[in-house]
């Protein structure tokens, strides 16, 4: 095993992934996406990066779209236009989209599935093998049985003049100006698109699997021949012979933006053709797995495999120290001396000195009192090593142990917690439960005079301030300030006993202090503390180290990996009164390349920065190295897209540029998905949203990319998504949502309702009035009726009276005509007798008798008239 230069390893962190890969040093991380985490099928037949930046993959279970963290599947279930789910080929139309070929259909992809073309008529007994667009934008489709079609006005037409031989397959099509290159398994052809005349280029048995260009230079990939270049005069030259490209699947040849040609083999290896030379990179994780397709970005490779899904290879953010002896060890303190020599302590295997490519180990076998190293300090010449059982002084020049400090020879204790050489050159150390010491000129231990309660204390970390003071952090006794060996101040921590452990101390540029404790991060300023814990966004409550890089970031280590916080974020925290302050930050763990996420504590130092600004972290499994300067913060890669509007069970694309969506009235709930293309820091992006009309507060979405809205009232809303990457505000994206009202919720309807209401009210009023008037009338009528009845009765009685009077009158009349006239006529007759008395001989009455009779009759008459008069008087009443 050859140890490489550790310095150069660290330096190379910012170089190309290619070089990292080529170095055979595992300086890449590979992450898989398969049917356990979103991919519908583990074989990726085709893979292409679309114009919007999504990585698209073709599988037998649908077309899939990858944005760095999520895979969206498009199949017949959610895209009814699709005729089939199985797709095998992708054909990129630069800047426009991707044609995906299935067994008997083509689908055009942009952000989603834009168009589907039924190809049944041209795929009888065959299938689509090549697709391209010509210079006029017409689609060309080649088939397995050598047929060549143009799609014009949505109808397939055979390309004129093209007469394939029997058993020839079209394998690739490439358009260049008015020239179409037609690659078959039996020769490459060039067709003039004006005349449709074509001629063969090169040998007739050339199996033209792929045609591609690098910087306007056309290349051909031909199995059994190799990679060939095609010049303007249509001459073919072999660049790389096939024998140098063993197991290459020619279909996946690909050019990166630097002009290098990449390919993948059936053995899970990457091939890089660079300046005419081939490098082979075996990827252990996919060894013996066929690479079907790949896409190479500047620092990322997307590999579609047969059986293992999508493999995303990228340069590690955090490096692992690749060292045969140390990679798997439980590493304790790491000390880097000014000249760059690394001194590495382990938990139980002693001390290692890495000097250039040399490694020297120190163990109990070579003179150490203990193999459990706790602390290392010193300079280029003298190295002090603290163990569980005393301290050693090692001469860094000759690697000899020059002095042993044991309890037996007068050393005041056993377990050395810290060793620290201050800027004045004096060596300070602390011993478990024994307080703080320094070495005098003769190398003898001298105890620092501390108040009694601070003497039998374990001081486990130390920090020299700019003013030359030493700050010691203890287990359970807080912080002690020493100047010139003299105790200055004791600062107690506002923590519970279990949390009251200071693992690390950091002096801010303003002189305030940050303490990494078991109870979180404490900021000490003006004799008061402010507290950051997991609740405020810390990765863990036990903060083992606090380091400031040269890029404005603070790095924390814990049992859960590394956390990077922008200093501005801490400045914000300092002035914030919000007890729910949430610190935005980045986490680095196993997925970023850490050898192990569990860093070590109760050692000193617990993290070390080398002269290049690279931070070395001891973990329970090897050393993890963070190079803050190499961390990609290229935000141009960020691409936010509103994606799909889900209305109940139906899906609607939100088109690029569309900023308003309408939600029909009868939808109870709807979902809006978005995607954020980010291949570099997919884990480092957090999303927040708010619906402006409902709340001004941002709601944390974590990495969720779907919003479900329930029973949103009709109206216009403004949905905003805020993406925060790497602890900085990235961008805010808004989408207007128009929730349409049901007919009874429309203004028109409400207006109608109001009108109806008014009419009803009017009607009611009228009705009421009517009723009241009616009642009044009724009452009046009743009154009138009553009156009338009264009158009637009166009339009736009057009538009766009248009738009675009438009767009386009648009687009177009758009496007049009968009774009165009786005596009257009698009297008249008697008078007549008397007057003619001489004449009537027969009369047997004397005149006297007649007169008497007359008188009697008149008296009778008189009597009657008096009676009548009496009756009249009765009527007059």
């Amino acid at each position: 095993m050859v140890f490489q230069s550790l310095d150069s390893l660290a330096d190379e962190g910012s170089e190309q992934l290619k070089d990292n890969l080529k170095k055979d040093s595992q300086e890449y991380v590979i992450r898989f996406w398969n049917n356990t985490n979103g991919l519908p099928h583990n074989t990726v037949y085709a893979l292409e990066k679309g114009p919007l930046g999504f990585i698209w993959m073709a599988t037998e279970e649908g077309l899939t779209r990858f944005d760095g963290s999520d895979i969206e599947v498009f199949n017949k279930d959610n895209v009814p236009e699709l005729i089939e789910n199985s797709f095998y080929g992708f054909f990129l139309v630069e800047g426009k989209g991707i044609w995906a070929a299935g067994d008997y259909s083509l689908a055009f992809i942009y952000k989603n599935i834009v168009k589907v073309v039924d190809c049944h008529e041209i795929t009888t007994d065959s299938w689509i093998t090549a697709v391209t667009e010509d210079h006029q934008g017409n689609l060309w489709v080649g088939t397995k049985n050598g047929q060549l079609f143009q799609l014009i006005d949505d109808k397939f037409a055979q390309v004129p003049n093209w007469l394939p031989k029997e058993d020839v397959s079209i394998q690739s099509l490439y358009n260049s100006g008015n020239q179409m290159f037609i690659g078959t398994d039996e020769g490459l052809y060039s067709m003039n698109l004006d005349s449709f005349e074509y001629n063969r280029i090169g040998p007739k048995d050339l199996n033209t699997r792929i045609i591609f260009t690098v910087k306007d230079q056309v290349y051909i990939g031909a199995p059994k021949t190799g990679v060939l270049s095609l010049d303007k005069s249509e001459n073919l030259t072999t660049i790389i012979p096939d024998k140098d490209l063993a197991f290459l699947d020619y279909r996946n040849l690909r050019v990166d933006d630097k002009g290098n040609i990449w390919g993948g083999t059936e053995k899970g290896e990457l091939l890089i053709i660079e300046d005419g030379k081939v490098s082979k990179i075996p990827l252990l994780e996919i060894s013996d797995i066929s690479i079907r397709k790949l896409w190479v970005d500047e620092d990322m490779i997307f590999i579609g495999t047969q059986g293992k899904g999508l493999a995303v290879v990228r340069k590690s953010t955090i490096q692992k120290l690749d060292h045969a002896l140390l990679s798997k060890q439980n590493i304790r303190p790491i000390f880097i001396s000014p000249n760059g020599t690394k001194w590495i302590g382990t938990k139980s295997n002693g001390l290692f000195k890495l000097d250039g490519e040399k490694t020297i180990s120190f163990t109990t076998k070579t003179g150490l009192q203990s193999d459990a190293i706790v602390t290392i300090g010193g300079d280029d010449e003298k190295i002090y090593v603290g163990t569980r059982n005393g301290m050693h002084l090692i001469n860094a020049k000759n690697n000899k142990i020059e002095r042993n400090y044991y309890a037996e020879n007068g050393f005041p204790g056993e377990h050395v917690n810290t060793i620290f050489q201050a800027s004045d050159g004096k060596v300070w150390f602390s011993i478990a439960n024994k307080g703080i010491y320094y070495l005098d000129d003769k190398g003898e231990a001298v105890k620092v005079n501390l108040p009694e309660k601070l003497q039998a204390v374990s001081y486990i970390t130390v920090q020299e301030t700019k003013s030359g003071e030493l700050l010691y952090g203890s287990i359970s006794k807080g912080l002690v300030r020493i100047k010139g060996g003299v105790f200055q101040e004791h600062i107690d921590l506002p923590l519970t006993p279990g949390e009251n452990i200071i693992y690390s101390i950091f002096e801010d540029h303003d002189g305030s202090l940050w303490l990494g404790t078991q109870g979180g991060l404490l900021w000490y300023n003006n004799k008061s503390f402010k507290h950051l814990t997991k609740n405020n966004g810390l990765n863990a409550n036990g903060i083992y180290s606090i380091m400031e890089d040269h890029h404005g970031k603070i790095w924390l280590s814990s049992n859960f990996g590394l956390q990077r916080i922008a200093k501005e974020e801490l400045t914000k925290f300092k002035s914030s009164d919000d007890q729910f302050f949430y610190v935005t930050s980045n986490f680095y763990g196993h997925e970023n390349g850490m050898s192990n996420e569990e860093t070590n504590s109760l050692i000193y130092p617990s993290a070390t920065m080398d002269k290049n600004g690279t931070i070395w972290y001891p973990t329970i499994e090897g050393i993890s190295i963070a190079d803050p300067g190499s961390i990609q913060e290229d935000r141009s890669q960020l691409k936010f897209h509103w994606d799909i509007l889900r209305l109940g069970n139906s899906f609607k694309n939100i088109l690029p540029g569309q900023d308003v969506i309408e939600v029909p009235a009868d939808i109870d709930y709807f979902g809006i998905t978005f995607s954020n293309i980010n291949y570099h820091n997919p884990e480092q992006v957090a999303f927040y949203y708010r619906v402006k009309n409902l709340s001004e507060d941002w709601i944390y979405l974590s990495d969720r990319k779907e919003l479900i809205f329930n029973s949103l009232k009709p109206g216009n809303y403004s949905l905003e998504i805020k993406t925060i990457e790497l602890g900085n505000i990235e961008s805010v994206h808004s989408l207007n949502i128009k929730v349409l009202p049901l007919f009874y919720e429309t203004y028109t309807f409400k207006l109608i309702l109001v009108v109806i209401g008014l009419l009803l009210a009017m009607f009611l009023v009228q009705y009421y009035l009517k009723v009241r008037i009616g009642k009044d009338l009724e009452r009046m009528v009743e009154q009138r009726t009553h009156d009338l009845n009264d009158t009637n009765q009166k009339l009736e009685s009057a009538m009766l009276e009248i009738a009675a009077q009438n009767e009386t009158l009648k009687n009177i009349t009758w009496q007049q005509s009968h009774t009165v006239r009786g005596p009257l006529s009698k009297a008249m007759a008697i008078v007549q007798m008397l007057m003619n008395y001489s004449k009537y001989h027969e009369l047997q009455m004397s005149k006297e008798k007649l007169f008497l009779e007359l008188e009697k009759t008149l008296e009778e008459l008189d009597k009657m008239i008096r009676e009548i008069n009496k009756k009249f008087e009765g009527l007059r009443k």
Partner: protein
Amino acid sequence: MAAKVLIIDDDPVVLLLHKVILKEDCGADMIACFSEPVKALEHIITHQEEIDKFVILLDINMPVMSGWELMDALYKELDHSQLHVIIVSSSVSIEDKEKAKTYPSIMDYWEKPISKNNCISLKQILESLNAC
């Protein structure tokens, strides 16, 4: 057989006076006077074979039986087609005159006292009856 006049009136003086007037002024030979209508009814019924020769002068207002009641009794007991009745009443009421018209047998309505004209018409009636 000569026609016979029957005078029915409850007042004996009037009965006498009318008998004299009829005899003297109207030339009636055969006159029978009844002051009680019931007696007159008996007479008529017993002499009903001569009824066509009777001219009955009937007063209306009479006690026990009025002229109308007598008429009704006659209509009830006899073939009234041969009956000749003249109402002689002191009543001048139209009512009585109208009622009289409802009896076909009543030939005329005279208001008391009997006038010369009444005598003339009776003469003619008697002459016509005698002529038969």
